[in-house]
């Protein structure tokens, strides 16, 4: 497996931002009331992630270490603004349903996390593929959650009424939607359920003797990545 496909595999499966790293929970829980919202949010984030990873990787030798965070934020915010205008112009319905969560992509910790732990230390092409992998992983995660919530909570799949609804007034039999799934508690229930399911699948695969590759780099999620090469939290012992 060469570096680029490895990056995509890493983002999709091994370090899936939604189910493994548990990053970006705010949009994950808030916008996944339907599958199409999940896709929209996931793809918007992917675009921002790929572009910001690319630019930050290009500029990694120019950005001084001490101001890297503000620099990353400026880069990410610019791309988010572009994506926001494009969505507003071309898919106004999606823009309306995602609403506030589009500008919030700026502070999505997946994007800053990848900039900090990957793009700022690796070459441009690999960083782009890292962005693609992580973005697709996020998109798959959000779409899966949205799909389950939409199906159980309203009987629809991508806005198509898959399960005909029951009508209480005429007594017509059919599916009675479990509304709680498109409300806030449903997001937690479905996220927990799907995470458990993918853990089970990974454990089963490991039992069958398939080699499950340990996470690349530090072997942990981004949250614990601080110690890899840069000291984020100074201990006071560094002599620089």
């Amino acid at each position, binding site marked *: 497996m060469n570096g680029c496909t490895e990056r995509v595999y890493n983002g999709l499966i091994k370090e899936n931002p939604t189910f493994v790293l548990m990053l970006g929970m705010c949009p994950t829980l808030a916008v996944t009331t339907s599958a199409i919202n999940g896709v929209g949010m996931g793809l918007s984030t992917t675009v921002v992630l790929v572009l910001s990873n690319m630019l930050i990787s290009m500029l990694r030798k120019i950005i001084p270490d001490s101001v890297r965070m503000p620099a990353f934020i400026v880069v990410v915010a610019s791309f988010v603004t572009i994506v926001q205008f494009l969505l507003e112009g071309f898919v106004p319905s999606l823009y309306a349903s995602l609403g506030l969560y589009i500008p919030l992509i700026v502070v999505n910790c997946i994007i800053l996390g990848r900039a900090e732990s990957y793009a700022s230390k690796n070459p441009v092409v690999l960083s782009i593929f890292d962005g693609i992998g992580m973005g697709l992983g996020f998109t798959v995660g959000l779409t899966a959650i949205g799909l389950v919530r939409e199906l159980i909570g309203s009987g629809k799949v991508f806005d198509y009424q898959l399960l005909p609804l029951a009508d*209480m007034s005429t007594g017509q039999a059919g599916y*009675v939607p479990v509304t*709680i799934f498109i*409300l806030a*508690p449903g997001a937690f229930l479905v996220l927990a359920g799907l995470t458990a399911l993918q853990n089970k699948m990974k454990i089963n695969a490991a039992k069958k003797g398939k080699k499950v590759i340990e996470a690349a780099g530090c072997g942990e999620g981004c949250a614990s990545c601080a110690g890899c090469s840069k000291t984020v939290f100074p201990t006071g012992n560094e002599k620089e």
Partner: protein
Amino acid sequence: MLSEIKLKMSSSPHIRSKTTSANIMLMVTIALLPAAAFGVYNFKLPALVMLISTTVSAVLTEYIYQKLMHKKITVNDFSAVVTGLLLGLNMPANAPWWMGALGSVFGILVVKQLFGGLGQNFMNPALGARCFLLISFTGQMTTFIYDGVSGPTPLALLKSGESVDTMGMLIGTIPGTIGETSVFAIIIGAIFLILMGVIDLRIPGTYIVTFAVFVGIFGHLKNPDIGFFDPQYITAHLCGGGIMLGAWFMATDYVTSPITKTGQLVYGALLGILTGLFRLFGGSAEGVSYAIIISNLLVPLIERVTLPKPFGKGGEK
């Protein structure tokens, strides 16, 4: 020759109670039977179907989960029966039976078993299930058909300022969920539990008194037509809705109520205030379920604050 004294050595505890979870749960089940029987008399066949559906599915869910997870099967401790029966008593008789079954699966699987089974659940499984259903199927869960007519519950009438039949509320010939209508039947069960030493008056007593005081004061402040501590208004509030069933059978659940004595008083008072707030100032007429599950979540905090100090600790510094 030294005489040998035979001493039996064993570690504490030296005095053991014969009470087990199984026979406590069995007594709670027996205590719920009057309310269940009255519910079936009051709402006829649909009520019986609902009670059977919730109870059977609660037990089956527990059995299947433990079987699949290779855990010890604890179905015969009656706790799943109590959960199922309580949920059934909290359902409107005219709701479809599968709704009750779905609630039981949620209560047992998500609220109880996923958190570690009996003794580990963070809120009352029956009430967790009821709130799950209430949010999901608001329409069916709040439509009460009595004598073939769909009508408002006495609490809804009370909220809109109309008069109610207090005697009917005591006996139970009013619309409502299966088990909550008859105050008499619930009190019979509660007296049995108190006599058997399963529950004491601390939680239900503080709950009911706090609630009565709250309603007495704020009922007047909210609507000046109702007198200050108007006895009829307070009685109607105490006999209507799920407060009796909640106070005696659900707030007293061992797992989700505080152990410390002061904690139990705080918990009871909190329940009373929350129920009063929800009923008088909330959007819907009833608020017992939410009051109990919110208080359930606060139990660890209450216990931390009211933990008694061991002798010799915490004196003058």
